[in-house]
């Protein structure tokens, strides 16, 4: 077995266990709850990174990044900045994925341009439920932002266009978190 194959086999043999996860959480923060939040924040950041790099399965790659990070931590590697280190691992994974995609000769451009999404009626119901939980003035602001002249709306609200945009997008993000992650508004 070549050194490269051995390294690859060792990598595949390693799996995340409770102890390694504990060490990783501890590396994030001594407070368990704060550590869990930081872990989740990093995971979301990784998902965004992989999604914006056109990965086919951003969640899987984010989890693989965290597994590799946990392994380094459990092996005692000194990591002063977990985010920066995770970014380095993610970049490597992106390179691996790019190599693997190049190896697959199936032309991706032959795939349909848009493979479609299925916003089931359940999602619409969840959005409506989350919208209903918003204060009435916020609901009205969202509805008006997406249907009226935005400059006029900003003037009517007595704020700049940029402030209006930020306010609406923050509301939208809260709604998104409520719908997709079940978080409270």
């Amino acid at each position, binding site marked *: 077995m070549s050194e490269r194959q051995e390294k690859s086999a060792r990598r595949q043999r390693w799996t995340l266990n409770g102890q390694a996860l504990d060490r990783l959480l501890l590396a994030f923060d001594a407070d368990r709850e704060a550590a869990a939040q930081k872990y989740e924040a990093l995971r979301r*950041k990784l998902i*965004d990174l992989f999604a914006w790099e056109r990965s086919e399965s951003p969640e899987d790659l984010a989890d693989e990044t965290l597994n590799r990070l946990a392994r380094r931590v459990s092996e005692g590697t000194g990591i002063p900045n977990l985010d920066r280190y995770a*970014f380095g691992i993610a970049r490597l994974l992106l390179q691996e994925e790019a190599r693997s995609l190049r190896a697959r000769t199936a032309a991706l451009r032959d795939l349909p*341009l848009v*493979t479609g*999404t*299925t*916003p089931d009626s359940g999602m619409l119901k969840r*959005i409506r439920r989350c919208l209903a939980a918003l204060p009435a003035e916020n609901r009205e602001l969202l509805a008006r932002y997406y249907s009226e002249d935005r400059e006029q709306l900003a003037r009517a609200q007595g704020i700049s266009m940029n402030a209006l945009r930020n306010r609406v997008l923050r509301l939208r993000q809260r709604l*998104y978190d409520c719908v997709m992650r079940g978080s409270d508004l």
Partner: protein
Amino acid sequence: MVDRAQLIAYLLHQMPEEERADLAEQWFTGPELQEALQAAEAELLDGYARGELAPEQRRRVEEFLLGSQTQRDKLAFALAFRDALAPPLTARSRRWFGMAAAVVIAALAASTIWYARRAAHLSSLLEQAAAGRASQPLPGGIYEFAVSPDSSRGAAEQNRLKLPQGAEMLRFDFTFEQAEQAPEYSALLSHAGRTVWSEQGIRGFQPTASSGGRGQANVVPVWVPAKLLENGSYDLELRAGGRLLAYYSFRITP
């Protein structure tokens, strides 16, 4: 300082790769840019869901932002978000890619030989539209109504269509300037992000002056089976050589 244009350029892969890699590291390891990127992405997907993006931007969203289920879930949210906010929407005119465009919609009730009849009826329908006789029943179970160019690119809420009883085909006439003409077109109808119908090899024609034609304009008739249309929002795309030429959102109402 990273501005919004740069964020969009990052998301749509419109900046040099080296610069993009630097920005990736900057947002990933910094405190604020991720939220700004998420906001820029949300605006792009909202614009996509509402048919407000320019063709090139729309194409890039499809190419760079809809490649994984994760991303398609975000679009599903944007589509549902659009529908959830739909009732209070009021019409707002938008441009349609800067092209002079007009859409005529016709419903055909006769189920037989509709295909053979289409050319024969077309000039008559265009004449009727040009004469402003919209929404008037015509002999033979065919009638039509016209949608103004300004509304052809707007949100579905602006373009509400009520299917006539017994209608079997709906015809959408896209009118282009000469510069946008192509030998063949393809059409794709989607509902809630899913393709429900498509047709290849559609040919355009130049209407005669007597039928209200506009000089060098080209009309592309797209016939859609009415049975596919249930109540809800639809997007009809017209493409040529893989390029998105026109896009029309409408809503079928009871």
